[in-house]
């Protein structure tokens, strides 16, 4: 049993964060691998099949060499679950930042975090308000890392629909992908938030990306089929699969609102969860 003071907590969380980042940037979760294999198997376009062939070779190379599968190792989005025994304090945020700095030099990650106006790069993937950390209660002490690349993130959007426009949710989702085209590295996963508030709906959309992509509800399937009629295909070169999956998360909202957010995620739907040894 380790000591359970703040220093030990910070070190344990740094270690878990490092491990989660390493796992996330080098290899994809099994459900994402299955979704990619299914998409490749049913693809008929020769150019698209070539893209899947590169993706397959790339995943094998990353795993073999233990290197990031994509050079855009993203910005770290972190989800922390805390059991009642873990005190909520600045120590948690410090530990996560330590893990990110270590990952940046050791794995390595590309230093992506800059000041939004001066564009000065911090060099260590941390900065004001970065990493984004979301904390929630849970039974186990875990850290989940979702490294978010910019190509797909840049094509995401929030739309404040009116309560009478429920029928436009599919339109918003499909239009988001129409505008995005090949830029977000399709075949994508679309995280869709519905309800909540202006800020909350974007968080819902991102959390939706953590859900398994090899199962969908009837509603999610309907949205996914609508996106796939666009025929954008892998990398925008045309093909039968534009979205591997659409995942929806819902929250209650104001009677006068219908917020909808679409968080676009490239085919490399990277995330990993590690239990904190504390």
């Amino acid at each position, binding site marked *: 049993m380790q000591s359970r003071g703040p220093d030990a907590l910070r070190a344990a969380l740094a270690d878990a964060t490092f491990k989660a980042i390493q796992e996330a940037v080098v290899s994809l979760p099994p459900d994402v691998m299955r979704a990619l294999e299914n998409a490749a198997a049913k693809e008929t376009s020769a150019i698209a099949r070539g893209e899947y062939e590169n993706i397959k*070779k790339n995943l094998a*190379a990353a795993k073999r060499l233990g*290197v990031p599968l994509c*050079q855009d190792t993203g910005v770290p989005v972190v989800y922390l679950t805390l059991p009642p025994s873990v005190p909520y304090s600045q120590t948690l945020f410090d530990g996560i930042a330590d893990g990110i700095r270590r990952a940046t030099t050791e794995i390595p990650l590309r230093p992506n975090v800059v000041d939004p106006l001066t564009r000065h790069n911090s060099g260590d993937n941390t900065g004001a308000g970065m990493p984004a950390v979301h904390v929630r209660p849970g039974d186990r002490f875990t850290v989940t890392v979702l490294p978010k690349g910019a*190509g797909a993130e840049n094509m995401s959007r929030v739309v404040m629909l009116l309560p009478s426009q429920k029928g436009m949710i599919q339109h918003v989702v499909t239009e988001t992908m129409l505008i995005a085209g090949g830029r977000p590295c399709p075949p994508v996963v679309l995280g869709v938030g519905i309800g909540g508030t202006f800020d909350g709906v974007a968080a819902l959309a991102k959390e939706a990306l953590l859900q398994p992509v090899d199962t969908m509800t009837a509603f999610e399937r309907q949205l996914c089929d609508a996106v796939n009629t666009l*025929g954008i295909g892998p990398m925008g070169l045309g093909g039968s699969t534009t979205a591997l999956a659409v995942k929806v998360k819902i929250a209650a909202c104001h009677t006068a609102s219908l917020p909808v957010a679409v968080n676009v995620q*490239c085919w490399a739907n990277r995330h990993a969860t590690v239990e904190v040894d504390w």
Partner: protein
Amino acid sequence: MTGTVVQLHTPLGDEVLTLRAGDRVELSGVVYTARDEAHLRMQKEGIPFDPRGAAIYHCGPVIKDERIVAAGPTTSARMNALEGFLLDLGVRALIGKGGMGSPAREQLKNRGVYLAFTGGCAALAASHMKLAGVHFPDLGMAESVWVIELDRLPLVVGIDSQGNDLFSVVEEHAKKAFGAGPVKECTDK
């Protein structure tokens, strides 16, 4: 598209004019990475390499101990308005992902090609590369101009020198499919 793979080597010449959208190629020789910041710097301070026959790779790699760890393409469309001066001075190929719109597409006409590499495939790309140098290192890892020696990087001709563009064909189809979808009545929003 045919099954044959065309071998290309930098510096490139008029052979790029015979390529057609959809052709598969393998590119060898030196290429130069450049993203948003590098283009802006080169516009201001000049090009730190011979642009004649050169290939520009839209890429911000991960480099460690002077070794390329991961080096897939970035979204080329961000550079749509930034390529004119490079093509004017003889650059023959732009490499990236997602395709390019105006004015880059028009500026490639009768001069060069856009070559697409699979986005996200950074470990695969790195296995075809050796690092040969760097310009503007003060721009940081992602934005510097890295000099990279390629060994048969597999690419698809996305836009050819006659203006044929795989991406715009797909885009037009997507627009039509969107207009014809079950939510057509909502498109006036």
